């Protein structure tokens, strides 16, 4: 990889800097890639880090190229500490700043992996993950909120998410049906809300 493809050159590459400002904002980004390096899920919590989709994908590609060959758990790229883990055809990544406590990032990664593993009944692979994508999003949101570690105990996460992977995923037809139904009712709710709402309820 050449310098041109590294978008954050100006602030990256240093592995050293002043002591960490005490803060709860630990996680810079989380993403899950498949074994071709395609993005399945990704969340960036620091708006200054890779603000555009293009930069994000570029970063993910970079990370994937450096990490997919061997399961080494931790890497340092573009000025960021990255902990990762793979399972069958999936790669899980948690990104933190260069000075971040690596073990805190590991705690997040482990919690994410364990929670998904429980939710997906140990079938941590691309297919089941895609089938239960909504649950996966809920899990991620219960573990990290805006970069702050919300929960690190997988058991707690599972309880909060209250979600079980379905044994019989719905056929395509029924999915379509449900979506239409859902959209219709969504607009109903909106409609009725619009009529009913008294802003004062909030006061």
């Amino acid at each position, binding site marked *: *990889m*050449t*310098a041109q493809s*590294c978008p954050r*050159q*100006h*602030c*990256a*590459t*240093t*592995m*050293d800097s002043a*002591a*960490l*400002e*005490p*803060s*709860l904002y630990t996680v810079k980004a989380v993403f899950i890639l498949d074994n071709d390096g395609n993005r399945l899920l990704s969340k960036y919590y620091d708006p200054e880090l890779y603000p555009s989709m293009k930069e994000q994908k570029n970063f993910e590609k970079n990370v994937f190229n*450096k990490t997919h060959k*061997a399961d*080494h*758990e*931790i*890497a*340092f*790229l573009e000025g960021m500490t990255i*902990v990762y883990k793979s399972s069958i055809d999936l790669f899980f990544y948690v990104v933190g700043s260069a000075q971040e*406590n*690596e*073990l*805190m*990032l*590991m*705690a997040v990664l482990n919690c994410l992996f364990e929670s998904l593993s429980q939710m997906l009944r140990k079938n941590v692979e691309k297919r089941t993950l895609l089938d239960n994508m*909504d*649950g996966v999003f809920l899990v991620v*949101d219960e573990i990290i*909120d805006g970069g*702050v*570690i*919300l*929960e*690190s105990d997988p058991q707690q996460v599972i*309880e909060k998410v209250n*979600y*079980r992977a*379905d044994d019989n995923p*719905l056929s395509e037809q029924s*999915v379509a049906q449900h979506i239409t139904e*859902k959209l219709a*009712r*969504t607009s109903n*709710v*909106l409609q009725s*809300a*619009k009529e009913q*709402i008294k802003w004062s*309820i*909030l*006061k």
Partner: protein
Amino acid sequence: MIKKFDKKDEESGKSNIKYMLTHYRCSILLLTAYFRGRNDDGCFAKEECLQATALLLTKDMTGKEDVYRGPAIRALCRITDTTMLQAIERYMKQAIVDKVPSVSSSALVSSLHMVKMSFDVVKRWVNEAQEAASSDNVMVQYHALGLLYHLRKNDRLAVTKMLNKFTKSGLKSPFAYCMMIRIASKLLEETEGGHDSPLFDFIESCLRNKHEMVVYEAASAIVHMPKCTARELAPAVSVLQLFCSSPKAALRYAAVRTLNKVAMKHPSAVTACNLDLENLITDSNRSIATLAITTLLKTGSESSVDRLMKQISSFVSEISDEFKVVVVQAISALCQKYPRKHSVMMNFLSNMLRDDGGFEYKRAIVDCIISIIEENPESKETGLAHLCEFIEDCEHTVLATKILHMLGKEGPRTPTPSKYIRFIFNRVVLESEAVRAAAVSALAKFGAQNDDLLPSVLVLMQRCMMDSDDEVRDRATFYMNVLQQKQKALNAAYIFNGLSVSVLGLEKSLHQYTLEPSEKPFDMKTVPLATAPITEQKTEITPMATSKLPEKLAPSRQDIYQEQLAAIPEFQGLGPLFKSSEPVQLTEAETEYVVRCIKHTFANHMIFQFDCTNTLNDQLLQRVLVQMEPSESYEVLHYVPAPSLPYSQPSSCYSLVRLPEDDPTAVSCTFSCTMKYLVRDCDPNTGEPDDDGYNDEYVLEDLEVTVADHIQKVLKPNFGAAWEEIGDEFEKEETFALATVRTLDEAVNNIISFLGMQPCERSDKVPENKNSHVLFLAALQVQHMEKFGHLSMTRFPSLKRMPVHMSQNSASVGWVYGPNTSLIL
């Protein structure tokens, strides 16, 4: 997409409906987020969405189903703006102290997010956060601590109190401990607390925590503390040593990375871990292996260097640029430590230079090669050859110009300078404007130094004069004309050694000149000199952070002083500031009043700036001035007192002194100084002063004016040329015995610091095992004189070639002066 609740069958229908409902809410949320993101200036659907969502979420927030309450709070806070914040304040306060941990945590974290938006509102929830901090739940503790710290971080006292409380109550969450360690080390740094502080004790006690995360955080905090001694480091190093053999890669990585950092400042502290580090150099995680090797390179012996370099070259292509930079820096440090190893290193570096890599990586290598060349004359030719090869295919303008400059400086003085010309001229043909211009300058230096190359260089210059770029053409024309004169003095002044004035000062002077049109040509001598020599900065080992981009040209210290002094009416018409000294302390550190002095030298005057600080909180000083009694024929012209000096607010007073006119050689002088002032006692709490005051005085230490105050360092990159330029008219030779000096190094350092001159061509470094050495010093000396009633300053270049000889236990120094004979030692 129906998902079942994990409930009993008979309830499943009901819960499904509920589930669907939450999903509608999610959809709405998505919609909301979508509109908020897309259309902040008021899409019609935004208000509806917000209202609908807020309504549903508020119901959820307060509903019975605990599972929904946390997410509802987080979602609501996400869409809340400042106007809505007031409305949900009551809910938030309740939620923060909710007994359900997920609700409390969500409320705390959401509050933290909203601090950015509305600090004042969130600040009102501090009592609730305080209550939440004593929760049994580990995550609630952590989040409460984080929020409390953010709300209080500007109030050091409150943070200290909070920290005291939590260190005593003993939080359970390892995350919270990590946070506390960070807060504690920040406090220590701010208060410059010693290692006997309870904060340090707390951090050290965390080394015995049962969570590895906390132990590591504590060790890392100790390692990062400035001014940590080897003894204080020892416990931290020993836990890191244990981590080195952990089965967890992340922990090994963390440990070795931190040890690497320790090794930079305290290599001996890490030697105990050498065995553990040896085990890591074959680690399958290349990041760990690299860090282990570079750490060993810093701590190990010379004999292990070859083996380690071999090991690292086996996988250097696999590691990321960041780590390659680490490797290069380790090599750079190593070359300074073991100069004899430079051939191994140079080989390795040239291979690395050929590999792919980003700008930072290449720059690190180039910097490293250049520093090796400068340190080891015998590696010059190989090094230059590698650099030449590199610029043949170099996409980074900055590096190409840097290397061309280096070639221009070093190339002409090699045995076969002609071979570099081809590389340089290739740049003129192929590269961008900036590189072409640099190449032209480099070519000119070859022409100026080597008479036999001159005709060829002139032909090439001719070619450059037809360049499409202005700068390139200008340079070529200029050099062409200078070279054609074939005068050594011109070459030295305009080709080898550039301007030594401050760029900002030059800009200002030129601007001034254009504002006041005058018959006279612009006089370069009115421009203040550049204070810090531009190159020769990176002699010490470069630390890991190398990625700082070239900073904008900041005004130098002297430019700032010039500005400040010019603002004082009494100091008008003194001409440009020649030199500002380093501050000299005139009091002990712990006295009632702290005074330090900065000496500003002008053509015929000196200004003494006294920076005074009053450390008594029950006194207000007024009309503060420092009275000076000179020992020589210096004349104190004027005092500018500091009008008022309240407690702990530094202020400056000035004294203007005229230098002795008749005797320009009387440069050194001792002043006895007394601070005089009016004291008004005041209330320590309110700072309200009494109406009456009384005069008092305070005796300060004597102030010395020395030779060095009249001398400004200048760097002559090509000393020989500068020497020739001056001619031998003023040359004078004298020999002095330096009786008390024991080694060459000592002699050289003493001479430099006494004369305050700039060592050139790295002649301040004495090669090992030699008993004679020639030191090159350059400076400008100010000559004090008054001509025709006009103030003028003449700057004499003052150059010295000083052969220093060592004989049994004593050194003698002879020197050959430059043109300046007035300097008395």
